[in-house]
């Protein structure tokens, strides 16, 4: 896929992200629920990080803190050396930070898909023609036939379609920090593959990508670092290669072995020569096709 990013919105300086000794609780009328206590984390600029952890471990809350949608009661959040809530939400944040929510269909507010996807571009004074071109391009990247969908109301979309449209509305802005909450949940195989290809490309361009997901196939492909949250603390911080090959560790966090490992083991049992490492699904498919063509043993 050749770079489809026609509009070059200025690239700001690299974004390093820091959470410094933060404490955060949700405070209701008669209930306080603590999510983080004295929690610290640093993400380097251009890093692609996967966040895993059981239900309620604080993953979505972490993304909201990074986007400045929640403020910690103690400690500091710094995105490119600024507190994210100091940025004016509808201009700066929308321009630099792209956040895909866990329930993206709740964020829609425009009457057509095209207006929804192009909303931020219009806000930044992009011409009508450019807006349209850019929207169509991004929708195509995600596997849509734009002519069939741009005039639809975003509220009539199926849930998988809604997730992709919400992602498109972020991508059009070319953000340099992406915060993604379960981007492949409910996507069909074409959608998941398109998402993966786009994230690969953005990663090569140096976009900082923080992805909350239970999808080990996705995370193995797109992240250089995995963090597992448990009870408001970091239970693991290391590479996908270390985590996904350690069955006991994974099981303790509530995850099965990724299917690529399961299949690599099956191939090994069948006498195939396999290296002791994490293969991608594409690599395994390639290897088996080579073998059946008699090129390898």
């Amino acid at each position: 896929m050749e770079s489809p990013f026609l509009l070059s919105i200025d690239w700001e300086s690299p974004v390093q992200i820091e959470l410094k000794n933060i404490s955060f609780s949700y405070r209701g009328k008669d209930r306080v629920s603590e999510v983080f206590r004295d929690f610290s984390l640093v993400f380097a600029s251009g890093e692609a990080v996967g966040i895993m952890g059981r239900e309620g471990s604080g993953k979505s809350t972490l993304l909201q803190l990074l986007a400045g949608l929640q403020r910690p009661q103690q400690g500091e959040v710094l995105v490119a050396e600024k507190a994210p809530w100091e940025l004016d939400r509808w201009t700066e944040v929308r321009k630099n930070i792209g956040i895909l929510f866990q329930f993206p269909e709740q964020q829609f507010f425009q009457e057509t898909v095209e207006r929804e996807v192009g909303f931020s571009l219009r806000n930044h004074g992009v011409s009508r023609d450019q807006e349209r071109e850019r929207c169509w391009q991004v929708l195509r990247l995600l596997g849509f036939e734009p002519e069939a969908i741009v005039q639809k109301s975003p509220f009539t979309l199926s849930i998988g379609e809604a997730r992709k449209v919400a992602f498109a509305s972020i991508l059009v802005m070319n953000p340099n920090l992406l915060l993604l909450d379960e981007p492949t949940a409910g996507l069909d195989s074409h959608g998941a593959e398109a998402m993966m290809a786009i994230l690969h490309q953005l990663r090569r361009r140096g976009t900082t990508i923080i992805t909350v997901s239970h999808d080990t196939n996705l995370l193995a492909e797109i992240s250089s670092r995995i963090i597992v949250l448990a009870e408001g603390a970091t239970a693991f911080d290391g590479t996908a290669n270390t985590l996904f090959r350690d069955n006991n560790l994974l099981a303790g966090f509530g995850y099965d072995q990724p299917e690529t490992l399961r299949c690599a083991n099956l191939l090994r049992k069948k006498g195939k020569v396999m290296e002791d490492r994490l293969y991608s699904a594409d690599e395994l498919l390639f290897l088996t096709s080579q073998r059946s063509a008699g090129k390898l043993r």
Partner: protein
Amino acid sequence: MIETKDLTYTFPLSSENVLSGVNLKVEEGDLVALMGANGSGKTTLTRCLNGLVQPTGGSVTVDGHPLTQENIRAIRRRVGMIFQDPNTAITSPTVEREIAFGLQNLSVPRRVIREKTNMVMEQFHLTKLRHVSPMDLSGGEKQRLAIAAVMVLEPTYLILDEATSFLPSSSRKEVMALVDQLRLELKVGVLLVTQFPEEALRASSLLILHKGQIVQRGKPDEVFSKAEALEAYGVPVPLEYRLGIAGAN
């Protein structure tokens, strides 16, 4: 048995059929899986099965009864539906009351309500959250609640529309085990809409929906063996089948 015959649906003001000629059967004690691309019509189909959507053609019957105005309430009692968006189902101020709500509507005695609610909260790891507002739960917690609140009613049929999409694999397995328990002990018939092929593998039959039509049906093992055809429909296939090593253990 839930049965559809030549079910067709077209949205108002639209010329395209979202569903066309769908024939489907879910018998008591059965697990039927339904897969298909985003927008292929899976949710619309499930909505036809409990009368939320009025088919524009064909018929739906539940244990032989058509979905008419008179018997819609009785049918909704028999067909428990877990929606794809767990937010739509929330009606109560606390987790505990959300689970008890359906039982209260059925005039179940208080003591039984308390027993069943407690048991289900344990099974779904919601006991600690019992006094929390469902709106304040995390995405995965909301999904567990949505499933618990329907399963506690022990309906004759259960429809799960991608009800576990935000759960880690161990929780998804727990949910499937609880569904199996209802199926085996109470002969509940289950229709499972999913993007997780390993869940579909447990079904007695797998249907593939493509642009509103059933294009493949059969035992999951047979259907997944046509890996290339399924990939063209956007259906995720277990890697074993894509590699041609399924069944090798």
